[in-house]
């Protein structure tokens, strides 16, 4: 009982913080694009031959659009389970990078909360959070604010993604995929990417990663994404080391 009480008061300390609402508002400004993407993911699951129940279960549990899209065609042809799971793992490798980044922010929390926040760390929850908070919390107040902001954004992202995806499952036979509504999701990611391009090295990072992802596209299991991130980060570190220090580094 006491355990449960602690759990509840921890969660309450986040949603009652003003940063929780700020997290929701900032996520809300990108959610239309993600909703369109979620909608098309819902449609694609049903069109790949899944039953409505399977599609709903996949959406609610897996909660990873790119991994779902990669797994669908493999499941439809009954590929070996290890192939499906390792494909999904590789498509999700960028989340492993994200979790390394989030570790110092969360390590003071109990494991169940680390896993809760980790599970909700989709692309945009991570990117919007790290755009605001460049350093791990130095004291309990900062930690509360950061977790409130993260929870607001990531929960809103979960709800709007799921609502759109379930709508897509329901309307799968009405919405034609050739309309290309899913492109709105790419535009949402593009917009957030632009908002991150706040210093020259970050623009270098974006350029290198974009080129590398296209050049290495032929790699299996979407490994081009990981190669792109690794080469962009490595090059930026090298430039940082070799260029003379200027004022106003990472903002």
């Amino acid at each position, binding site marked *: 009982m006491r355990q449960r009480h602690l759990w509840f008061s921890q969660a309450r300390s986040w949603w009652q913080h003003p940063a929780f609402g700020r997290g929701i508002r900032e996520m809300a*400004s*990108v959610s239309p*694009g993600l909703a*369109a993407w979620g909608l098309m993911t819902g449609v694609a699951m049903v069109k790949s031959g*899944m*039953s409505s129940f*399977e599609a709903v*279960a*996949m959406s609610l*549990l*897996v909660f*990873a659009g*790119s991994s779902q899209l990669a*797994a669908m065609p493999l*499941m*439809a042809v*009954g590929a070996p*389970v290890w192939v*499906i*799971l390792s494909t999904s*793992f590789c498509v*999700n490798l*960028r*989340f*492993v*990078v994200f*979790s*390394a980044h989030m*570790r*110092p922010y969360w*390590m003071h929390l109990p494991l169940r909360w*680390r*896993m809760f926040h*980790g599970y909700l760390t989709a*692309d945009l929850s991570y*990117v919007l959070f*790290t755009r605001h908070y460049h350093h791990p919390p130095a004291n309990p107040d900062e930690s509360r604010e950061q977790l409130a902001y993260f929870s607001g954004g990531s929960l809103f992202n979960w709800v709007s993604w799921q609502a759109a995806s379930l709508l897509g499952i329901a309307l799968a036979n009405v919405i034609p995929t050739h309309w*290309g509504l899913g*492109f*709105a999701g*790419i*535009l*949402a990611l*593009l*917009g957030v*990417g*632009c908002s*991150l391009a706040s210093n020259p090295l*970050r623009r270098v*990072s*974006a350029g290198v*990663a*974009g080129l590398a*992802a296209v050049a290495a*596209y032929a790699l299996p299991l979407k490994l081009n*994404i990981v190669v792109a991130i690794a080469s*962009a*980060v490595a090059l*930026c*570190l090298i430039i940082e080391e070799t260029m003379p220090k200027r004022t106003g580094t990472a903002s």
Partner: protein
Amino acid sequence: MNSPALDTTDLWTLGVIVGLTLVTVLTRCFFVLSSQDWHLPHWAQRGLQYAPIAALAAVVAPEVVMLQGQLISTWQDARLYAALTGAAYFFWRKGQGQAVLGTIVSGMLVYLPLHLGLGW
């Protein structure tokens, strides 16, 4: 044996869905699972500030300039103009206010007519 037919729910598919869920949890929580006291090396911590924008660019770029695994060889592709319009809108607004929403809306306003109207 295990090809799911339309609107029948089979155990194989549900099993794969559970497996995919575990993959999501494992990858998203990878470095926060262990409670051991260790820290990322300093260079890695500095490098990680370049990871978010790299991840986004790596996801977005192929979706704009590639089609079925090939670099597109035509200018008649709605995605190019939509992405350029969206980015132009963002920088015109200097990222203020609802600039990301504007990126999505202006991009789709260019994309849909070109894609559905002209078949680009």
